[in-house]
């Protein structure tokens, strides 16, 4: 029932929001739904922690530790984004953004679009994590794309339509590859399982028999899955939609794309990774993942070093972190998987903070270009400014913030492996990315007072920022025991244990 509730609540919230007549009602519906959702997700995590697995409908929906972790993070991101969104869209309304649309749509219909599509979006993401069947999982991932296209083109500017088009097209191609990979997986299992029922694609069934799968097919399947879900996760060279989509979407949507969709795509990848390593041994997958991981981190470097827009900067950071997680997976072993999932967790919590800061700054300056910002934001934004700087440091892996811990764990796993150059190269690239970030954000936040009017007065925006920032700081010193236990169990799932 819990699993059903997890899926039903966002669907219901989407429908209710669609029916709602005014802004307050929509805000209230979303907030309430996501708050309840978060509690349910926490409950799920708690149950999974004790029973290892929760199932519904004869195993059609199933949650193991990995799913529970992804569900929990998705629910968390959805909750904080919905809180922030209230302040964000109110500010947009005050700035008459909606009236200035190319389409000239009225405020309420724009808001309705956001408030009803977002729960659908979240529903799709939860389904990704909860579906046991890999085919259904694919359908759900495709659904996340479809639900978010119009969220990306939300503002109706020429550039946002461009971004949405690229997102839809590249995503479409990517997911076709993923479907191809899924078909091949089904095929390679087909002969072994001799079944044509739904269970033939159930992960829980596949993982048990993975060793007998056809090896060549599994290789091709993994390549296609890697490219497919890699596209969705924004792994280079399939990352190209990311900067466009992240910079054009409304900030809460961008935050969700960066923090939650990434998780879902990686989640899909992990499921197949486990099958592949079981079938082929770890070398094949880890070879590929090392190349793609390093490529992702490396691709981000030039764009981070030379960048004109801070929204796009964040997108490249997201590509970089996708690469790091992929590398964690690639370095393998219990440590690599654990590092990867820790990174996933910390990233999901830190990244929204960074996006919210960028959102506040963008709404304050009315631009996301560095060149138009005169620096010295700390004077007009005494809360967002310093937190922006702090979040930058957090996201670039500076201790005491938690991402250093996960990156360190991943690197440790890397140095434990047969090849030394990938982790060393990773360190070099990470340093370069840090440099780019620091230079850009320090220039933006610090400096003489340019004389802008004070901002940071909206309590929704301010307190969602402060709250999340506190979580980020606390995580640097204290990771709650049960959460760590959950992550560790999830890492066992990645490592192939049940």
């Amino acid at each position, binding site marked *: 029932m819990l699993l059903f509730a997890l899926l039903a609540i966002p669907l219901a919230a989407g429908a209710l929001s669609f029916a709602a007549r005014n802004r307050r009602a929509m805000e209230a519906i979303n907030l309430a739904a996501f708050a309840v959702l978060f509690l349910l997700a926490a409950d799920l995590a708690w149950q999974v922690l004790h029973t290892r697995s929760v199932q519904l409908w004869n195993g059609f929906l199933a949650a193991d530790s990995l799913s529970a972790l992804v569900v929990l993070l998705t629910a968390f991101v959805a909750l904080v984004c919905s809180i922030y969104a209230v302040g964000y869209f109110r500010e947009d309304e005050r700035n008459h953004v909606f009236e200035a649309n190319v389409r000239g749509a009225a405020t309420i219909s724009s808001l309705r679009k956001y408030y009803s599509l977002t729960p659908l979006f979240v529903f799709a993401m939860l389904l990704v994590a909860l579906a046991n069947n890999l085919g259904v999982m694919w*359908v759900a991932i495709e659904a996340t794309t479809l639900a978010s296209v119009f969220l990306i*083109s939300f503002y109706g500017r*020429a550039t946002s339509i461009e971004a949405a*088009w690229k997102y839809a097209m590249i995503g479409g191609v990517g997911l*076709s590859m993923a479907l191809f990979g899924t078909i091949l997986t*089904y*095929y390679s299992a087909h002969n072994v399982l001799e079944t044509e029922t739904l269970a033939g694609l159930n992960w829980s069934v596949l993982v048990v028999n993975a060793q007998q799968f056809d090896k060549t097919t599994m290789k091709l399947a993994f390549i296609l899955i890697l490219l497919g879900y890699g596209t969705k996760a924004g792994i280079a060279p399939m990352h190209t939609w990311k900067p466009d989509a992240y910079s054009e979407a409304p900030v809460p949507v961008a935050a969700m794309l960066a923090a939650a969709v990434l998780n879902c795509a990686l989640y899909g990848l992990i499921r197949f990774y486990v099958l592949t390593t079981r079938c082929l041994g770890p070398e094949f997958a880890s070879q590929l993942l090392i190349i793609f991981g390093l490529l992702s981190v490396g691709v981000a470097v030039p764009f981070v070093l030379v960048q004109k827009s801070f929204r796009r900067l964040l997108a490249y950071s997201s590509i970089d972190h996708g690469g790091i997680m992929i590398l964690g997976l690639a370095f393998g072993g219990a440590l690599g998987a654990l590092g990867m999932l820790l990174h996933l967790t910390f990233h999901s919590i830190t990244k929204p903070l960074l996006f919210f800061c960028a959102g506040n700054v963008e709404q304050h300056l009315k631009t996301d270009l560095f060149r138009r910002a005169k620096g010295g934001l700390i004077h007009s934004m005494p809360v967002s400014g310093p937190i922006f700087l702090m979040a930058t440091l957090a996201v670039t892996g500076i201790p005491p913030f938690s991402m250093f811990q996960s990156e360190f764990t991943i690197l440790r796993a890397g140095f434990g492996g047969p090849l030394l150059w990938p982790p060393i190269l990773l360190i070099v690239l990470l340093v370069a990315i840090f440099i780019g970030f620091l230079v850009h954000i320090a220039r933006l936040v610090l400096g003489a007072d340019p004389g802008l009017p004070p901002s940071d007065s909206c309590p929704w925006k301010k307190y969602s920022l402060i709250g999340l920032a506190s979580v980020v700081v606390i995580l640097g010193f204290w990771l709650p025991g049960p959460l760590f236990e959950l992550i560790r169990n999830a890492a066992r799932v990645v490592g192939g244990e049940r």
Partner: protein
Amino acid sequence: MYFFEDPQFGNRMITLMAAFVLVLQIAMVGQRWLVTNIRVFAAQSFLLAGIANTIAYFNHAPHLYIAAFLTFSLKAVVLPVVLERLVKRVDIGQEIAPIVNVPLSLLISGGLTTVGYVVAASFHHPEDTASPASLGRNTLAVAVSLFLIGFFMMISRRKAIMQVLALLSLENGLFLAAISLTYGMPLIVELGIFFDLLVAVMVLGILVYRIQETFDSMDVTKLSRLRG
């Protein structure tokens, strides 16, 4: 009518239809008129439905009939109609200058077909060619080629609507692969895929319309403001 029982006959039929599917795909590559392209796509989808029916018949896989019906109704009828109306509405006849010119495109398509065959060749297990389970498996090469050529079309065409069409033909390749390798996916998955496809086409249709409205053109090369 004994040959209706003969798997060998079914195999031939499938191979023949698959070959036609590939020919149609290459025809799309060479074709500049949008409306013609849409109709070629419809024909291709129709053939696919035929292949699905044949496989369902010879392998006694009843759920494939449903897939075949959905393919027919959705891809051979509904989508072409929707797309043709869209083309009429935005009033654009043909692709003037594709990014890769037609002769070269045809050449590349040939190359991609070869790649498809090479990839598919790795699936051949000599010991089970004779068994009924292998029925239609030689169409895999066609499926991979369809997929690759469709992908290539997305790269070589400027018009947004052609990209949508290319994406759809690419999905046809997937469908062919699914039915030929495993006689389709589990039914609920199949339904989900079709539902997604439908929604995707609607979403893309709306986007195409918005592009036309915003940029006064369907040329996606004009969508290049977001850089760096």
